[in-house]
């Protein structure tokens, strides 16, 4: 979500501290995903003052059958930065989806999205990531 481990750690600890305080006061919300919901808003708040990505059309390519091998060549930190650079709600959608911890209904609840929006964000994200992969690690032509 943030592409910056220091900021991520800050948000993580603030969220937990706040949760502990609310638990001590017996004011924990009843919604099942309130902690993740809270953490998401803190992430968005933390990046508010950062440089925002310019709004310009990013290339989009259809998913390549050999994309998996292109992804393997990526550095995990690079991928984290690429995701964090996406505008919200695409950033939230990609981060939560690829964490592989939530099903789509849970993501809709945490990110407060509609199914069509989540679907559009993910489809667009895949095509843009493919375009970035093609630019960064062009697939070797098969002999």
């Amino acid at each position, binding site marked *: 979500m943030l592409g910056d481990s220091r900021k991520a750690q800050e948000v993580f600890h603030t969220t937990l501290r706040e949760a502990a305080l609310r638990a001590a006061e017996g004011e924990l919300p009843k919604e099942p995903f309130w902690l993740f919901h809270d953490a998401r808003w803190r992430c968005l708040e933390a990046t508010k003052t950062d440089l925002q990505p310019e709004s310009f059309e990013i290339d989009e390519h259809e*998913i390549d*059958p050999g994309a*998996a091998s292109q992804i393997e060549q990526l550095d995990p930190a690079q991928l984290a930065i690429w995701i964090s650079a996406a505008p919200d709600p695409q950033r939230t959608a990609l981060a939560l989806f*690829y964490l*592989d911890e939530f*099903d789509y209904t849970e993501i809709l609840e945490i990110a407060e999205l509609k*199914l069509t929006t989540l*679907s559009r964000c993910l489809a667009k994200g895949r095509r843009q990531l493919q375009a970035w992969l093609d630019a960064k690690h062009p697939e070797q032509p098969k002999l």
Partner: protein
Amino acid sequence: MKTLRLLRRRRALLNCAPFNHDQLADRSMRSAVSRADSSDEFVNQQNFDRAVAALVRLVPIPAESAEWFSEQDLVVGSKWTWKKMVRNPAVLAISIAVVVIAGVSVFQLLGRLNDFPGSATARKLLAVAASTRPVMLDPVSAEAGTLSDLFFMKHGLEHYDVPDEFADFRTIGCRVFDDEESRRIAQIWLAEKRMQLFLFPAERNMKTGAVLHFPGWRYVHQEGWVGAVTEHSGVCFMAAVRGREKDLEQYIATPKE
């Protein structure tokens, strides 16, 4: 229009389809995935998603935060001890119920262990003995053993014989009456310890009509009275006295079975 809406929804679901099939909990998602499972486009998407997720798992987590995701339990739950468990109201209630049920069962089992053919009649006759007054009987002063002839001659009761153990005692009175099942009962009152003797038909097998024999002497108890019962030639004999088994034991020659 409806079909178009459905197709759009299915497309939207496929874009959000989990790459891990364990997460296919949603029915509409399962249906959408099963329809598209073999298409090249969907297979590419799934492979793409799996590869990205595998890379996301490799994103380094700062050590301080990683501590929170360790395998160890952060909060150790309080251990259950026997003391705590016993104090639990539910456990307590169930335990009491089980003890009561077990007690009743044991009581009934012990009661059944002492049962023998004719024990129910014998208990009823003990109640009769408790409520009988001497004036209710015909005065007869004789040896108990001699009343067999009286019962046979006057009432036509065969084998209504007083056993040798009680045959020599003097009688005060006797009578013959029918119980609620129209069985002929002979009752003798003795001078000895105000003891009462009963003779009544032994129980029979409901199907064959054969007498249900039992060996030796058996004891029955009812409202402070005790009876020693034996069976001979299809007739049961009971000596009844207010008191305990030991009050009768001294009269019975054969050991208790």
